[in-house]
């Protein structure tokens, strides 16, 4: 029996789909059988980040409505052989998901996969609720800016209220991923630090992803950045994957390389 992990954030545009894609590839590369599901109905995006947009025939709504078999809709990744992808539907009606059908689908997937990774839509409406109500774990993405942290805090407050697991008295394990951090800005005091965000959100950290220009390039190409050996962002994702699987991994030292003056002034801090 696998587990359901939901990637969520409240605010849009903070990197949910990018994170989902990279973690899906990373976990598959660690030997897990993974299915990544895009729950952002009407605004399908995970397909392009994974580079699988040309192979879509059926989508998640087709499966739930019985228009095709699950195996017909699942797309096997080109490189990561144990990764499968279930695309969002492009229908305009975002309320098309039905709670019972979502439940049937997810419980079915849980039986045949180690990890069911759900890319939740932004917002706190029904799409978000469908993506969270069966989750065993939640990864909350926040960038270090006030709107993102505020929305993340709201989402964290709602997760337990919407979760079936919480209703049974069990905990939905929640972790924070801080995305797009710029160490030089943090050091200059112009960006909230990892510690600032964590003290506000009061949840444990599972990883920090540096803001790297290469991420845009990898999205352009449809090849998740986690494949890049030397990228710090990729290393961040790889470490999150290991932590998800229960391994204890050191956190990346993200502080900007210090110049001479900074080093001297650091002594006086």
């Amino acid at each position: 029996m696998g587990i359901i992990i939901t990637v969520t954030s409240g605010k849009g545009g903070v990197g949910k789909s990018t994170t989902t894609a990279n973690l899906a590839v990373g976990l598959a590369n660690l030997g897990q059988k993974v299915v990544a599901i895009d729950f952002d109905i009407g605004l399908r995006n995970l397909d392009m980040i994974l580079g699988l947009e040309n192979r879509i025939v059926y989508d998640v709504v087709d499966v739930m409505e019985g228009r095709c078999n699950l195996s017909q809709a699942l797309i096997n990744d080109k490189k990561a052989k144990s990764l499968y992808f279930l695309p969002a539907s492009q229908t305009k009606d975002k309320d098309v998901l039905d709670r019972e059908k979502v439940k049937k689908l997810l419980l079915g997937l849980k039986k045949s996969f180690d990890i069911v990774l759900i890319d939740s839509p932004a917002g706190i409406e029904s799409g978000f609720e469908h993506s969270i109500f069966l989750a065993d774990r939640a990864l909350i993405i926040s960038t270090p800016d006030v709107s993102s942290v505020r929305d993340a805090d709201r989402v964290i407050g709602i997760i337990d209220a919407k979760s079936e697991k919480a209703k049974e008295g069990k905990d939905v394990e929640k972790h924070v991923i801080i995305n797009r951090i710029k160490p030089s800005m943090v050091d200059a005091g112009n960006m909230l630090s990892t510690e600032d965000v964590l003290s506000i959100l009061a949840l444990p950290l599972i990883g920090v992803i540096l803001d790297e220009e290469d991420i845009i390039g990898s999205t352009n190409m449809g090849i998740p950045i986690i494949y890049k050996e030397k990228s710090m962002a990729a290393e961040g994702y790889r470490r999150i994957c290991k932590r998800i699987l229960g391994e204890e991994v050191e956190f990346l030292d993200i502080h900007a390389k210090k110049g001479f003056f900074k080093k001297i002034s650091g002594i006086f801090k």
Partner: protein
Amino acid sequence: MSFFDKLFGKKSTSASVAKDRLTIMLSHERVNCKLPYLNDLKNDILKVIKKYTSVSDVKITSSNNQNLDVIELEITLGKK
């Protein structure tokens, strides 16, 4: 702030301002989040109050102090 910042009289950073603003804002929002019925309660109370007075608004605030959750209700009846 570092020693050098103090030495040159640098003002508090935008990050620390952001942190303070968020901390204050969220401490308010979290209380409301804990009592999702607060708005409905307010509307119901207002309906009852309106039956007897010409008051058009009531102020409800909730706070928690250690182990005690408190809802405060303030009704201003108007000036004499």
